[in-house]
């Protein structure tokens, strides 16, 4: 029934789809197996992509030729660039999406990807030859051969859904969980753990009184995730903000004795950063209200998503409490919120390519690695897909560093530190945040991906033009002198001091009060010079001028730390020979097997003194 594939991808969520697309576009023969062809790239949680740090990840995936950015852009019902008031390193694109169109678009793009086959079945085990994976077994009893396997099982492995005291198996509401695979992996020697996440109730939008909520519209001139040019949808939808109250909290508390969270029925650890409403009122008892963010699910549906009200309390308590929230007085439920527990595999069992240390050619990506979020999943899938392709073709590993991409930070964190709770990306996890911006993901990454044969020539050409042209504009401003009479009235209007003598244009733009578009309008020679230049390039030039000194300082820090990253460690290194390592750090080093001194320095429990010992030894 099946020929031998190069790569089998198990699961068709955000991770699986990116993995399949990347590997297939690189030329591998790929089979994507999912339990349900109707839920490809399903947004299991809220209908939104991006956000702080996550938006940067989507931009990075897009810059390298992944699909998440394009799919998001084509299904965007509202776009906002978050943190515009802060510096460019904090600007974070975020889109509300049409949940149905999102899935449809993903499936359409995958169906139009060469080398990619689909099959609907449940994978119940792996085919392993020695220490190398060579295919999968399915619940239909099929054995499908491949050279590599990427597992992206999401929340489906032994998934258990909790609503109050009710508990039933399932990978998502209305869908069954996946059984057999965890047991098979544990038999092979993998360590498994349990995590928990949750989702809020979905409500009939027609029953909500939006007039007493705060409306939040998207940006007037929306930006986008993708660096490619294509038509964006124009029809927009608003989100709405409302708040819980002490009365709501009191009602929720009445249900605590039937909460699976508090009665100990849920064993898995939940995300601290995306807590359920019961968790929030329990942990932050002093707060008398919490924000509720009402998100539309699409253009052609009345269903809304009640962000901020994730809960696994009994459905009657959910209902009673929700209807006390301003605007929800007459709310009708489509379905209650629930918590879901699932198996994950501590990611310290992986190499930086996301290949398992135990079984060759077996890759893990997404929630199976203990992460949360579509963007984090998609990024891992994308990298696992690339590395699976590279591995079966005996090509070099494709690993991004922490100073190159959030994706590099994400994977390094996972395989080096592991995670006890669902891992979510933050800008603060990136030590070189100022360099990892949404405006320069293409400058950072497109060439790397193009060299692999993944990012298209069109992408490379675009980014090269962006670099060339923005450098030209910066150079022009560094060389151009402005006379006081030409510019002083403009400076005064913008609330900044006038210049007493001729000044370089560059120095004027460096002032925080001045922005480049205004300056272009006010100063004719500049206007002539930039004539016809696209807004993205104007913005890039402005960022370069305003933050140059910081980028330089940051690059200095990078090069300072680079020597540690360049110092390789043999994975077979015998740490037992170093007497002065603490017991804890020796155990950790033996388990993680860091590839570089830099990676070793990030393992928790390995002290700087231990690193000094290693450093001296390695330089011997």
């Amino acid at each position, binding site marked *: 029934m099946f020929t031998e594939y190069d790569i089998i991808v198990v699961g068709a969520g955000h991770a699986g789809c990116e993995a399949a697309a990347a590997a297939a576009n690189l030329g591998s023969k790929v089979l994507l197996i999912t339990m349900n062809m109707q839920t490809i790239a399903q947004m299991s949680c809220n209908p939104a992509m991006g956000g702080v740090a996550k938006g940067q990840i989507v931009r990075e995936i897009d810059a390298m030729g992944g699909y998440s950015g394009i799919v998001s852009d084509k299904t965007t019902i509202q776009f906002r660039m978050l943190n515009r008031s802060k510096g460019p390193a904090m600007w974070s694109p975020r889109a509300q999406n049409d949940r149905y169109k999102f899935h449809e678009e993903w499936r359409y793009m995958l169906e139009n990807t060469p080398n990619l086959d689909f099959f609907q079945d449940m994978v119940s085990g792996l085919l392993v030859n020695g220490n190398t994976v060579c295919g999968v077994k399915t619940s239909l009893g099929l054995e499908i051969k491949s050279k590599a396997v990427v597992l992206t099982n999401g929340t489906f492995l032994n998934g258990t859904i909790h609503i109050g005291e009710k508990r039933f198996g399932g990978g998502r509401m209305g869908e069954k969980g996946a059984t057999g695979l965890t047991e098979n992996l544990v038999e092979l020697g993998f360590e498994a753990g349990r995590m928990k996440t949750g989702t809020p109730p979905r409500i009939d939008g027609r029953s909500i009184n939006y007039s007493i909520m705060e409306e939040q519209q998207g940006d007037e001139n929306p930006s986008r995730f993708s660096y490619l040019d294509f038509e964006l949808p124009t029809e927009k939808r608003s989100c709405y903000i409302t708040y819980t109250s002490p009365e709501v909290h009191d009602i929720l508390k009445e249900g605590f004795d039937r909460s699976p969270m508090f009665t100990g029925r849920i064993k898995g650890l939940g995300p601290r950063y995306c807590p359920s409403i019961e968790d929030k009122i329990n942990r932050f008892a002093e707060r008398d209200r919490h924000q509720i963010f009402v998100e539309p699910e699409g253009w052609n549906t009345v269903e809304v998503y009640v962000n901020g009200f994730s809960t696994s309390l009994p459905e009657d308590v959910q209902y009673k409490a929700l209807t006390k929230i301003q605007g929800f007085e007459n709310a009708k439920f489509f379905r209650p919120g629930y918590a879901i527990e699932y198996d994950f595999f501590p990611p310290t069992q992986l190499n930086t390519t996301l290949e398992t240390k135990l079984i060759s050619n077996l890759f893990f990506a997404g929630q199976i690695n203990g992460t949360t979020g579509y963007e984090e999943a998609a990024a891992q899938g994308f990298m696992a897909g690339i590395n699976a392709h590279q591995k079966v073709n005996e090509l070099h590993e494709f690993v991004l560093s922490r100073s190159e991409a959030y994706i590099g930070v994400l994977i390094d964190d996972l395989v080096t530190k592991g995670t006890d709770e669902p891992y979510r990306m*933050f800008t603060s996890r990136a030590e070189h945040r100022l360099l990892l911006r949404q405006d320069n993901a293409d400058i950072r990454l497109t060439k790397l991906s193009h060299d692999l044969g993944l990012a298209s020539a069109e992408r490379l050409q675009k980014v090269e033009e962006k670099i060339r042209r923005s450098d030209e504009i910066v150079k022009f401003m560094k060389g151009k002198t402005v006379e006081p009479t030409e510019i002083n009235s403009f400076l005064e209007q913008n609330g900044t001091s006038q210049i007493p003598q001729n000044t370089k244009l560059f120095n004027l733009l460096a002032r925080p009060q001045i922005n480049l578009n205004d300056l272009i309008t006010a100063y004719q020679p500049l206007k002539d010079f930039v004539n016809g230049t696209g807004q993205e390039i104007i913005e890039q030039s402005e960022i370069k001028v305003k933050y140059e000194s910081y980028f330089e300082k940051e690059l200095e820090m990078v090069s300072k730390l680079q020597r540690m990253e360049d110092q390789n460690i043999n994975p077979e290194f015998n740490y037992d020979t170093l007497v002065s390592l603490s017991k804890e750090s020796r155990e950790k080093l033996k388990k993680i097997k860091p590839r570089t001194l830099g990676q070793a320095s990030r393992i928790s429990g390995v002290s700087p003194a231990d690193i000094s010992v290693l450093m001296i030894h390695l330089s011997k």
Partner: protein
Amino acid sequence: MLPVSPYAEDTIVALATPAGTGAIAVIRLSGPEAIKICNKVFFGKDLEKQASHTVHFGTIRENDVIIDEVLATVFIAPSSYTRENSVEVSCHASPYIIQKLINLFIKNGARTAKPGEFTLRAFLNGQLDLSQAEAVADLIASRTEASHNMALKQLRGGFSNELKALRQQLIDFAALIELELDFAEEDVEFANRPQLKALIGSIQSVIRKLISSFDLGNAIKNGIPVVISGKPNVGKSTLLNALLNEDRAIVSEIAGTTRDTIEDEINIGGINFRFIDTAGIRETSDKIEAIGVEKAYEKIRQSALVIYLFDPEETSATELKAIVDELSAHTSTDSILLVANKLDKGNEAEWKKRYEGLNGMLFISAKDRIHLDLFTETLLQKAHADQLNNDETVISNVRHLEALQKTNEALDDTLRLMEQPFGGELLAFEIKRALHHLGEITGDISNEDLLDSIFTRFCIGK
């Protein structure tokens, strides 16, 4: 049993006392074979059967020829400086004997230690942390009680503990900013700016104090530079000789003999003073002497104290005031000490009256050693020696100074940014820089430069 360290595969040997002639020299062996190697050539008790921390008399022989009579002190792992087996051999300090003994040990299986290798082993075997290893270098180099105390304090960890506490405060501060950055969209409370500013202020005041302690710390380590100035033939050299008790500077009756600067180190009250005897600072037509005068001013600018020595019989109050003004152009008024010499020929009460209005003046006779005790007391006071007696942390290491300065710079930038409409991510960046530089001192950040700077500062054998 202690697991075998890869650094203990071989046994190292080196002279542990300074090269040069003295009565006794100590040769140190460290490594798994240290006791065995020494025992092969040691004739006396069987060293391999002796308890740790015991001293044994014997002879060291090569082919039955006695090279020297020695005392061998045995240390058994892990109870030694390096946590390895060690022997310290005290021998007679003739260069021939030392060379002969070291060669003999090498012939029997030891190898020459690299600079800092004993301390490196102590560090690698978990005996010392980095900042302690660094302090060992200072300790070995210390020549006075004060510099010894300072190094010892660092060796015990006092110095890095204080900075660690500071760094923790800064980390907490950074965490608040990060929270604000990552959760701006999620209804969190913002970090209180005035509070943050106050925190930076208090951290900076400690850092600045440490930075300014460097001059003192450095002075303790290298000697406090003191310029002795005055007209030719006023008795500068005599004063120096009186303090030194030896005739090192040229003393002559011809004005202008001391043409170049001459330095002498004198230990007073446990602190080293470097006295710099300069040419006089009078106007001169002599070219060579003119260069000397310019040099004198340069030295004054670099020194901690300037002693202006004068002969009251030849110096009017007006003239003295002019000189103080002149000196003040090159150094702070507070560090000028006016000393009237040749009290043996004059009257103190009369002199006091003559110079009324000029403060902090001493009246001495260098020749007859009158009031010299008062003079040295004043020196100690002016050198802020009192600061050393209380428990204040003093830094003396250039690497520490640079790291503190960079920390301070980053904090200055942080405060500057807070005044402007910039985002918190730049604040966070500057704070991260500050944390990085502080970490370089406390050992929370390791890099090769730091290791190099620590272990290559040692002379061979420590």
